[in-house]
């Protein structure tokens, strides 16, 4: 699918004056470009988007946009975002994370966000490493990743985010490669438009601690099959996934979780009374 939305804002209108401090060559620059293009294609003004993140290189992304942003607590971007979406369903809420923040510290929230199916779009920039803290293995690091920190490799089976998302009930599951900016932007647009919890695993190379990941651009390839709405079929496809298949894997039909919440009092004094013990 390609986006053909009205051009209310241009991609540059979603980019803030704050200059990214990622390393040159980092995949997260590509994700920022894809995101701003996707936001423009969605045709909403910046103030109608909220971008919530946790901690890590990838989680700096809200500051680089002109949308509402919340750079939150490590691993806790999803509950913050779910709370925001539930009380402000008019906002389009996008959540940004990395493989350490999202799958380790926030791993439990990931499963339950999939299960709960609040209408969020979750972008996980996966580089198989903790980049910000200088190269510790993350849940998606290969077991033979041999460094001073992990002599002989971790020996631990990597986490499979797409399997977990699908098994936990995510309503939209896809994989993108950061370097394919157009394709990533199109998948983000589709994910935002799809009701419920949409999960996109974005392979985003860390060229500093994983220079080998520069080769990902030659390893990624379009998935040989089109998306399915059958979770069992999607699961079978994942059994033969090489980790570099790109595209939308699954589009589900579950209704999003959107409880009716009591109006929040505008008077702060009244609001504080609700917290009195």
């Amino acid at each position, binding site marked *: 699918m390609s986006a053909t939305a009205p051009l209310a804002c241009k991609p540059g209108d979603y980019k803030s004056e704050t200059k990214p401090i990622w390393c040159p060559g980092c995949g997260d620059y590509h994700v920022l470009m894809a995101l701003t*293009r996707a936001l423009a294609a969605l045709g909403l003004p910046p103030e109608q988007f909220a971008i919530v993140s946790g901690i890590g290189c990838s989680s700096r992304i809200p500051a680089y946009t002109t949308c509402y942003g919340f750079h939150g607590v490590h691993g806790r971007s999803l509950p913050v975002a779910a709370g925001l979406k539930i009380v402000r369903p008019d906002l389009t809420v996008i959540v940004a994370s990395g493989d350490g923040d999202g799958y380790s510290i926030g791993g439990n929230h990931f499963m339950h966000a999939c299960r709960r199916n609040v209408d969020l779009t979750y972008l996980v920039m996966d580089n198989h490493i903790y980049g910000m803290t200088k190269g510790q293995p993350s849940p998606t690091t290969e077991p033979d990743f041999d460094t001073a920190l992990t002599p002989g490799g971790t020996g631990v089976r990597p986490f499979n985010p797409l399997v977990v998302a699908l098994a936990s009930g995510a309503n939209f599951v896809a994989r993108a490669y950061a370097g394919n900016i157009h394709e990533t932007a199109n998948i983000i647009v589709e994910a935002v438009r799809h009701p419920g919890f949409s999960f996109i695993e974005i392979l985003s190379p860390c060229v500093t601690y994983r220079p080998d990941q520069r080769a990902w651009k030659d390893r990624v390839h379009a998935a040989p099959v089109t998306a399915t709405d059958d979770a069992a079929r999607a699961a079978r496809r994942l059994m033969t996934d090489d980790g570099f298949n790109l595209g939308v894997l699954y589009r589900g039909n579950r209704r999003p979780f959107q409880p009716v919440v009591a109006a929040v009092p505008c008077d702060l004094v009244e609001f504080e009374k609700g917290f009195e013990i």
Partner: protein
Amino acid sequence: MSGTSDIQPVSSSAQLYAIAHEIETDAVERYNLLAEQMQTHNNEELARIFLDLARAEGLHAEEIRRLAGDLGVESKRGPIGTWRTESPESADLSAAHYLMTPRDALQMALAGEERALAFYTGLASAATDPAVKKLAEDFVEEELEHVELCHRLLRRYPLPTGVTADDDPDPPRASD
């Protein structure tokens, strides 16, 4: 990176102008981004080169807009773009390094111009509409000039003898 694999049938001059304009504006965005990265990492010389490249691509974009006249150059595909993967001329952002040299930057630019040349050459040979064919051939000539310009500029920058991205004296270290 993309190239000839992205060639799609082009049915009108208006469509080709829009594609050409998109190629140039994408290049502007990428070179500006690379300039920002180099400024952030205190590589001012390279930042200036990327800004110059962005300015040059911007001038090309404006020239295409002028040539298109009433046909316009706005892509009907919206802000995401036409390409299945990436625009043929796009600079490979993943090749950036804080110790890049001007020569590296010019080689990056040359690779983009060569991909654009291959793209328009393929388009010109595949075009059936005479006007589209002629316009594509004009773009081939222009890209040839850009390729030659990159080669000329590269001659100004000999192979580096100092520290390069392949020989980082201060490599990232994982904490022990």
